[in-house]
């Protein structure tokens, strides 16, 4: 029993080790190349249509305005962070301009430029959604992440991965489900869901004697997606699971979860 315990510990820490090494490798290889790419990059240029354009020292509303660009002058767009744009004025000064002011600049063709702001319309129409939820799974704690793809505003396909942490057993669960939103344009949008997957349970050796099990599951549920702000969604749901065990009786488990998600 103890021996098996040791091997599982080792394999998990090894996989986390591998993850850390990969992330470090990505950072180390990325930094110099992205710096080179940036140096060679050709920035998009627009001209100021407002009486003047205010440049802030940082990407936030509290940062002071330290420079203004007059109407008609050309500016280069270096990069964007959330709703702020780093620009370079004709004299080389760099600073941050908010989206509202950037929308009142003109492209070389003389047409105004548009930057989409995530809004409630995107909450309804955006194809992708990623989120994390936590809650209670039949008395145990559960932590889940999911990714969703919307086929249309009403129907989406979701893939879930969950870790279950209980007093008597731990485990993980993976599932695929279809979600239907009846009123996707509501700010608080209710949904129904149906799905299937597998659950893996490892009883804690110190408390209960038992074997590791992997069983198929099916679930049905309902919940709410609430549009919070920009790209943020709050989500709460209830799911009822049937675990198809190899014993005579199927197990039923109820799950409650709340969390957040963002769409893009």
């Amino acid at each position, binding site marked *: 029993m103890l021996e098996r315990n040791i091997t599982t510990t080792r394999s998990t820490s090894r996989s986390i*080790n591998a993850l850390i090494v990969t992330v470090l490798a990505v950072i180390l290889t990325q930094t110099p190349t992205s710096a080179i790419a940036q140096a060679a990059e050709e920035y998009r240029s627009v001209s100021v249509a407002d009486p003047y354009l205010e440049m802030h020292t940082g990407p936030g509303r509290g940062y002071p305005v330290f420079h203004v660009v007059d109407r008609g002058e050309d500016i280069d767009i270096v990069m964007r962070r959330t709703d702020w744009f780093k620009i370079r004025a004709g004299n080389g000064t760099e600073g941050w301009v908010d989206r509202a002011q950037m929308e009142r600049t003109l492209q070389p063709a003389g047409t105004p430029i548009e930057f989409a702001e995530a809004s409630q319309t995107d909450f309804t129409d955006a194809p992708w959604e990623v989120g994390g939820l936590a809650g209670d799974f039949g008395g145990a704690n559960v932590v889940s992440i999911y990714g969703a793809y919307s086929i249309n505003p009403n129907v989406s396909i979701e893939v879930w991965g969950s870790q279950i942490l209980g007093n008597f057993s731990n485990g993980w669960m993976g599932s695929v489900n279809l979600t239907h939103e009846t009123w996707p344009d509501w700010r608080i949008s209710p949904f129904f869901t149906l799905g299937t997957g597998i659950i893996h349970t490892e009883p804690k050796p110190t408390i209960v004697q038992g074997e590791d099990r992997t069983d198929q599951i099916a679930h049905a549920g309902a919940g709410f997606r609430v549009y919070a702000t920009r790209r943020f969604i709050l989500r709460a749901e209830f799911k009822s699971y049937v675990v198809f065990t190899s014993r005579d009786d199927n197990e039923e488990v109820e799950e409650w979860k709340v969390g957040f998600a963002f769409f893009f």
Partner: protein
Amino acid sequence: MESRFRILFLSTLLAFGLSGCAATKNLFGFGEEETPPPAEIPAGQVIEPEVERREIREPDIDSEDFEIGAFIGVLSIEDFGSNVVYGARIAYHVTEGFFVEGSVGQSEGGLTSFEILSGGAPLLSDSERKLTYYNVNVGYNILPGESFIGEGRAYNSALYISAGLGSTRFAGDDRFTVNFGAGYRFLLTDSIAMHVDFRDHLFDIDLLGEEKTAHNLEGSLGVTVFF
């Protein structure tokens, strides 16, 4: 219990069946096709210019909302002493205030005072002493601002708070873990940041007899890159 599940199952099926039909109308191309509006030629324009102009599309602009990096510091595991902790983190900045982040970390527990004093058999095997964790947090930049070094240099910085959930593997078990903390982000350039972060990881442990909530304090120094 079973009947409740059945009702839920059937009502979900019904919901898909009834309103799903209308929803899938456009999915297979049966919906009304929208004809694009005819191109308008502005009044008074005689010659159509053949100059190719470059329209700026949003994806053309480099958007740097993600932050990825590594950290190293000290983690004090309750009853098991303080040890080096290192790990990686990734964050996505949703607005100028809010961000979500995920991190993984690894450390190792030392000997408890009991083990040292008694000199007896150790409580845990070497591999059980290894601690690994992951967490998913929501954070907010409560005090964004600038930090000055001398007279001529100003760097953007922010004091942030964050809290979240995750799991810790320690002493041969996965433990549901809540964490919260605060940090200071110092931007060396607009794309490279340094972090100082203090965090408390809380989980339940019953290794020494009775079950208790262990506070595991972590202080770390990190470097991240925006992309």
